[in-house]
């Protein structure tokens, strides 16, 4: 089942002689259980594309269909973007970005509280996820006392909390050593295989994309056909 469909997506910044074309003619389809890597050098438009998929940045042209619902077509389609994000998208960041004043468990509970899940069920789900990420024993610790790898596993557990249709991971291994990075990638692959989710990983590290279903190369804001 298709989770994300992007057709002819374009994004320009500025106007006239100051106009910068950040993305052009992007077509991308991602289905459930698929693991997709977005590769490209700095300035290739990876982050811009991620922001558009995250429904944060409004594209200039094109079409975005998310989980069967048209989100963008010549403008936002009157959808509550924050609601879509909290109910259907999970985020994993480069620098973990856990909320520092919440414990590991509370960080996982937070998105569940946003979708109004009942407290007991939410607690159970949070502990299941932390257990799935093999970090249940650190549930009551604040992020500051967790290692980088542990923080990233908590962040992944948080991204999974809302049973997201799509997990977006922005350079999830950038702050980790190779061994820990490989372990995080293995977890993301496991998620794509075992959950009803699609995973898009933005990375510049080609060593990490082994076993991915699709690798999308971006160059100067366009898909690079030579790397397809």
């Amino acid at each position, binding site marked *: 089942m298709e989770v994300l469909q992007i057709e002819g997506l374009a994004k320009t910044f500025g106007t006239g002689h100051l106009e910068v074309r950040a993305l052009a003619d992007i077509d991308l389809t991602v289905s459930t259980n698929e693991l997709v890597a977005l590769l490209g050098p700095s300035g290739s438009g990876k982050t811009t594309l991620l922001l558009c998929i995250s429904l944060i940045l409004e594209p200039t042209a094109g079409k975005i269909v998310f989980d069967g619902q048209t989100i963008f077509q010549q403008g936002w389609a009157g959808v509550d973007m924050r609601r879509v*994000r*909290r*109910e259907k998208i999970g985020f994993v960041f480069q620098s973990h970005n856990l909320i520092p004043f919440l414990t590991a468990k509370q960080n996982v509970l*937070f998105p569940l509280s*946003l979708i109004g899940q009942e407290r007991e069920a939410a607690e159970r789900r949070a502990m299941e996820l932390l257990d799935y990420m093999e970090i249940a024993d650190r549930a009551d610790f604040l992020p500051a006392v967790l290692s980088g790898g542990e923080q990233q596993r908590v962040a992944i557990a948080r991204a999974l909390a809302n049973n997201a249709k799509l997990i977006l991971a*922005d350079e999830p291994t950038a702050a980790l050593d190779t061994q820990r990075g490989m372990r995080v990638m293995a977890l993301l692959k496991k998620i794509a295989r075992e959950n009803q989710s699609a995973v898009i990983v933005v990375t510049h590290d080609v060593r990490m994309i082994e076993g991915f279903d699709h690798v999308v190369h971006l160059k100067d804001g366009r898909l690079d056909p030579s790397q397809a």
Partner: protein
Amino acid sequence: MDLAVHDLKQHRGRFIATVFGVGLLFTIVLAMNGLYRGNIQEGLALIKATNPDLWVVERNRGGPFNEQSTLPEQYRYSVQTTPGVEQASSFIYYSVERRIGGQSRHFSIIGYDAPNGLGGPRSILAGRGISHAHYEMVAHPKLGVRLGEQVALGLHTYTVVGLTKEAISPDGEPLVYLSLPDAQEVLFQRDNEEIRAGRERLLRDLTARGVSASQAERLLEPLQPDTHTINAVLVRLRPGADRATVARSIEKWLYLSAFSTDDEVELMLKGRLASMTKQLLLFRTLLLVISVVILALVVYTFTMEKIRSIAVMKLIGAPNRVIVRLVMEQSLLLTVSAFAFGVVVIQNTYALFPRTILPLPADHLMTFAIAITGGILASVLGLWQALTTEPAMALGGG
């Protein structure tokens, strides 16, 4: 999930320090509220305790407390004969500083037609009222005198025959009640050397104007300053007499001014007490503004430290109300905690202040309402910053 509380738990030290600092500012605001109330209470206590039907004072003067009023003592008899007047009593009031018990004491003296005239102490805490024409006094315990103690005032010694607590002057000083002649003597009594020098000056002045020495000697006595002056005549009306009519009659025929007790209260509130009221209002306003500015800075700093977390919250779909609640709740928690601390401090210390502090629940509530409004205003800057934060910041920029 209560994000504000979780965050404050992580910043416990700063939270407590802020509550302590702002709480002390609130303490001062509440102390000034109490000082204002105490000032009004003290300023009006004597007027309300005396409470005659009419205060008759010098023409066009707002005396005897709000403004100096001096009139010859014999006016009492003229007032007494005014239709509708049942009783008229002389009244004198002034402040002095004398040594009592080896210490210099500032206090006020009231002289009245003891024992049955108007203007004397209404309730006696211990002992009795003045029953003799001379050398007896009733005093406030704050003066540091005991029942039966002998107190030297000027040339004479007075026995403390009674203690009364209602006796506080409009300046918050303890009062001493004396009979009218005693009070006049204490007020006008001059040093013997000064009397002798004054007489010589007068003799020289008279002889220089061509008055013979023997005539000048004879004129000395009638030309001495009159000490039979008072500040007011207090009036009790006959049953059924109309206060306004009697007042008008006194003003028309005796060329004096007559005020009801309510008028006297009004004169004090609009006169002598008004400047203090304005002063305290200004201080209270400034302190409240300072408190709100400090709260705003603290809330802003708290918010800025969380700005990346706020971006993450927005990115993962937190609605604005979650962000607003986080910032607003912290501001309100700080405000409420600081205010509660201020209330606890003032309630436990107000008796230690040298002037009367009268903390009233209604004033606390009013200040609390202003403080809460200030707390909400204080969060505006932090809220604006939080609500304009781009969720893209969580992804490392747009």
